[in-house]
């Protein structure tokens, strides 16, 4: 859903390691989390040829995103991400999944075209709940969409 559903905390978090989202699409994936309280836009933030965050002001500037589960705050920027996720996926220089507090339509449209794994909408700030670097599983396929810390 585009807005966070009002939900009592105990309904959204069944353990300290599993966090439920309100919407998701794509396949179940695992990867190491790359976490920041910052936004995401493929056009604004990435050097897609090198697979790194490139915008100097971004909190992940210089970090490789390839194969990582990106846990970020909100979708930012323009509409280019709708094509770029598809292009990044075709070349294999792509994150494993996107986990966002808030999406915009562009991000959803891009994930739909690319068959890319994305989940969003939590009862807490997901960037504060997932430690950077931990192995996580993102599962948008079950009855409840979730991200789970594996190790």
């Amino acid at each position, binding site marked *: *859903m585009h807005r966070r559903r009002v939900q009592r905390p105990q309904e959204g978090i069944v353990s300290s390691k599993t966090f439920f989202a309100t919407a998701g699409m794509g396949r179940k994936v695992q990867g190491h989390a790359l976490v920041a309280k910052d936004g995401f836009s493929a056009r604004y933030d990435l050097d897609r040829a090198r697979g790194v965050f490139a915008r*100097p002001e971004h909190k992940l500037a210089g970090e490789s995103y390839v194969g990582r589960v990106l846990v970020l705050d909100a979708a930012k920027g323009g509409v*280019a991400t709708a*094509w770029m996720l598809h*292009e990044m996926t075709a*070349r294999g220089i792509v994150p494993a999944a996107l986990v966002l507090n808030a999406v915009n*339509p562009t991000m959803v*449209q891009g994930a*739909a*075209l690319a068959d890319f794994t994305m989940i969003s909408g939590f009862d807490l700030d997901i960037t504060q709940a997932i430690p950077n670097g931990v192995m996580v599983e993102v599962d948008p396929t079950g009855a409840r969409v979730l991200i789970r810390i594996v190790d």
Partner: protein
Amino acid sequence: MKLTDEERALRNGEFGPAAQWAIEHQIKVGDYLGAGDFVPVTQAHIMADTESLGVAGVEWLERMASLPAAERRVRIPTITDPRGTDFAAADRLKHQPWMLDLERRAIAAFEAFGVLMTNTCINYQTIMPPVRGEHVAYGDTGVVIYSNSVCGARSNFEGGPSALSAGLTGRTPRYGYHLDARRTATLVVNVGWTPRELNDWGALGGIVGRLAGDYWQVPVLTGIERVPGSDEMKHFGAALASYGSVALFHIAGVTPEAQRLDDVIAPGRSLPTHDVGEADIRAFARSYAQAGKIDLVVFSAPQLSLVEMAQVAGLLDGRRAAIPLLVITSPQVKPDADRMGLTARIEAAGGIVLSGMCFYQSYAREMAEANGWKRLATNSAKLVNIIGGYGYQPALMSMEACIDAACSDRRKAS
């Protein structure tokens, strides 16, 4: 989502595989975003430069475009955002043959769909502005925010695949800014100083965008002391959409849905309120200012109106640019600029007039590497926000200061 008989037929492939793919894509997006049904739209606007599409995206378009003509045509007027080059000036920008080849292939594919290659992000100034209450499926965020806020039309950000889908099906999922409930304000910004220059309007947009924070926020501004012109609204909205991913704003007493502040604030609702003054706008610009030599000046993002073209020409009269000075407009404005002598005046001063492209959508990283460009001056806050990620060091300045930076000569006494 609830589907009509026609939508079920589209989904069953009775209108061909392109429309079938399109409505499946739209249902996937609509389900994610909570749409209950579809809404018919009258126009679509597709952002699809080849830097975004890549080879994979162009091949995807070509596969769809190879369907029989009757199975691939758009149903409603469908237009395009700027392309990735201006073919007439590609060598001056050092665009490579592979970029031009990819552009030609994408254009051929879109033409096969029956898309009108308008190649503009200022269609609300030049093509067919939407009217209040009109549901449309627009791409470029600057187009969406202007159409929603200034025209009172109704659109979400429709990325390229979704805008093409809307063209093919004539509808879009009904969520977000197609709904009355989403169009009320979520924050109030009291503006203590009404900007004068376009870069200041852009800076105000950037500040409000940062305050808003995400797509679902709708700022309403108070304190604006006069009705801003179309170019001022254009720069304000483009920056607000860029910094905040915001798709709709109101200005109390100015924009059509907010003739009174109370028109856009739900009864009894208390909203977060912020104050923004001249000092904030100056500080915003200073955060991008830099010492040292400027490598190039760019007027773009959004493309320039005819009025802006005349302003640039006037400021350049009798002067000479010592560094690249790119002035980028739409294919609709360019012939008028040619006819009225504006292009000749700008180019006589060493400027390069480009049309049908936008700087950041035109292989900006590759242009930087090929031309040795790094320090860029512009009056576009939107461009400043984007271009850092492409390896540039941007400065936000007034149009006049940008031209002073480009010209090595002293300003002629008036």
